[in-house]
């Protein structure tokens, strides 16, 4: 992995950002500790110096300049942490372990009696225990005593200095380690993510290039990348499924249209021969051609509708569903078909329960009902009966059924008649494409329902045994 490309990677960028944030936070802590410690050291030195000065000026007040001198000599010999300089009123050195006060001599008349001391931070040159020259940071105060002598007292803040130095060093070191570890961690995370993303990416690329079979490896680790991979796979499965069903539908349409086209061509050829022979005139031939074209168009639309419904069933979604009362639909259908049925000399009756809410594609469901009612009217001989029922089954499903007293369909053929273009021998004299029940089946499939064919009321007086076609579909939820 080259560095410039690495810099563009999200995980690595995030790592860098976090490392930088950490460094900033560490610096802030460092600065705070430093300032706080420095202030404390200064305050302590100031308090110490003030106290020492009070003690010394007390000695001066009570026992005079000589006693102070003695005390200072004594302290210098004993060696403490304090620095002293005692000067006469003109600034001449009297005694002290510091030969020259680091603070300028204030003019006489100022600070008399030690009232207004002057403070100053300074450094002085000294040797430490091992003999090295050091210049510790120090703090001192200076004031005139009541007799006019000038006393300076100071103290090194050296100890604090060293402590802070060590602290600073440690923090810098820690920061360095954090930076190193952070960068290394970032690289590692980046590379891992890079690999995982690479695997997903190669699937996407493969699909782009047309390989719908490509799938992302899934480790079942439950992390987001794994979930993404699983999601990608599910999506591809769906896509592949619908592609397959489209291809299947295309094949089916091509196959289904070949026979009606062949039929149409043959009929037109016969018409042409007849027209040439003068048996029919040109207008008749054209009218025949037109009606053949219309039939073919009808067949085509039906085949297309079946394909669309089957694709919908495959994806588990009803096309353009609406929630409506199927009882109204059934009543309208009964009203629409009753006259045609009675005209044919059939007794038509309807039994419709109220309140049958369904979520369905209304035109398709209407078409399905129309097809089975039309079939019943078509195949029932004069004097028979057709009955439409719509009810809620005990299972809660909605059921439409059409029962007739026609010849029925033998049990062995019931599965077969739902297939496309299947027409039973005794029905060939009736007009029809053989797609009616296939469409009904496809409509039910797309609604998560089913079509059930049963025997009708049984044989009697030359009628029957009849057919009962039931359409069962789930009721609308809620």
């Amino acid at each position, binding site marked *: 992995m080259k560095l410039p490309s690495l810099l563009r990677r999200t995980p690595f960028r995030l790592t860098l950002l976090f490392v930088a944030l950490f460094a900033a936070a560490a610096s802030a802590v460092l600065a705070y500790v430093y300032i706080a410690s420095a202030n404390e050291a200064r305050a302590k030195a100031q308090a110490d110096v003030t106290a020492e000065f009070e003690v010394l000026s007390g000695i001066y007040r009570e026992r005079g300049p000589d006693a102070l001198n003695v005390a200072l000599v004594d302290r210098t010999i004993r060696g403490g942490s304090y620095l002293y300089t005692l000067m006469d009123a003109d600034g001449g050195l009297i005694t002290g372990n510091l030969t020259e006060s680091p603070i300028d001599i204030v003019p006489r008349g100022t600070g008399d009696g030690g009232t207004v001391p002057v403070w100053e931070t300074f450094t002085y040159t000294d040797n430490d225990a091992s003999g090295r020259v050091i210049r510790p940071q120090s703090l001192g105060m200076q004031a005139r005593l009541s007799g006019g002598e000038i006393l300076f007292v100071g103290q090194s803040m050296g100890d604090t200095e060293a402590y802070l130095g060590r602290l600073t060093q440690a923090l810098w070191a820690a920061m360095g380690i954090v930076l190193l570890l952070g960068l290394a961690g970032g690289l590692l995370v980046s590379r891992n993510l890079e690999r995982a993303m690479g695997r997903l990416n190669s699937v996407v690329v493969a699909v782009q290039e047309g390989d719908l079979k490509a799938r992302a490896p899934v480790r079942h680790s439950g992390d987001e990348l794994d979930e993404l991979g699983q999601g990608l796979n599910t999506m591809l499965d769906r896509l592949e499924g619908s592609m397959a069903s489209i291809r299947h539908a295309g094949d089916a349409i091509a196959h289904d249209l070949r026979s009606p086209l062949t039929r149409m061509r043959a009929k037109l050829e016969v018409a042409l021969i007849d027209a040439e022979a003068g048996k029919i005139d040109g207008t008749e031939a054209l009218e025949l051609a037109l009606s053949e074209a219309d039939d073919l168009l009808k067949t085509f639309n039906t085949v297309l509708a079946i394909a669309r419904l089957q694709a919908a069933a495959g994806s588990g979604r009803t096309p353009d569903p609406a929630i409506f009362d199927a009882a109204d639909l059934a009543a309208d259908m009964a009203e629409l078909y009753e006259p045609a049925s009675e005209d044919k000399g059939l007794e038509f009756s309807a039994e419709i329960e109220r309140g049958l809410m369904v979520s369905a594609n209304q*035109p398709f469901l209407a078409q399905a009902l129309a097809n089975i009612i039309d079939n019943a009217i078509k195949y029932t001989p004069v004097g028979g009966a057709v009955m439409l029922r719509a009810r809620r089954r005990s299972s809660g499903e909605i059921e439409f059924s059409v029962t007739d007293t026609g010849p029925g369909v033998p049990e062995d053929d019931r599965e077969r008649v739902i297939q496309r273009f299947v027409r039973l021998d005794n029905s060939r004299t009736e007009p029809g494409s053989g797609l009616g029940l296939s469409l009904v089946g496809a409509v039910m499939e797309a609604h998560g329902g089913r079509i059930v064919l049963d025997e009708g009321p049984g044989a009697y007086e030359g009628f029957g045994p009849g057919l009962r076609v039931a359409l069962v579909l789930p009721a609308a939820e809620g």
Partner: protein
Amino acid sequence: MRILVVEDDAEAATAMVRGLTEAGHEVTHAVDGAFGLLEAQKGGYDVYVVDRMMPRLDGIGMVETLRKDGDQTPVLFLSALGEVEDRVVGLKAGGDDYLVKPYAFAELIARVEALSRRRETGSVATVLKVGDLEMNLIARTVHRAGQEIDLQPREFQLLEFLMRHAGQSVTRTMLLEKVWEYHFDPQTNVIDVHISRLRAKIDKGFDKAMLQTVRGAGYRLEA
């Protein structure tokens, strides 16, 4: 009647112009939505017949623009897209009727003529009169030559539609769509049976048969 046909398929357009002209209408053809829009904005048309899918400006866009400009001329959409949602999109965009390709000329002409009439009868009439046939929409009664005719509710609706389009051909599909409000193929002649029952009620015993069959098209109520 002046009709603007907006259709990009040259052959389909030629046939349509021919058919509508034969039926006695004055037809102008525009080759796409943009030209259609320009032509429509000149004004003076009774009906627009608009293909849904065209290059440049499609039919939906064209009709939406016209409706925004306040043009209320009736629109018949033609489309190869025949699913429910396509129909809904067309009607939402401001279409008044929707015909799926391919269609029979008789169907196209009947629908175009029905649309033009629709605008004229926009006022709220309580009584419809065609010849000696009279329909009271409030009392829901029908009289022919003063003689009351008893109709079932659906027969009343059917006759109302025919009376509103008196003198025009209406197709079986139109009747199923406008009177029953269903969009499906009834397979058999169910509409014919309803018509013949209605005919038996309004024409039986009278010299003149008002409800006529138009060959290859459908029905027409004549005064």
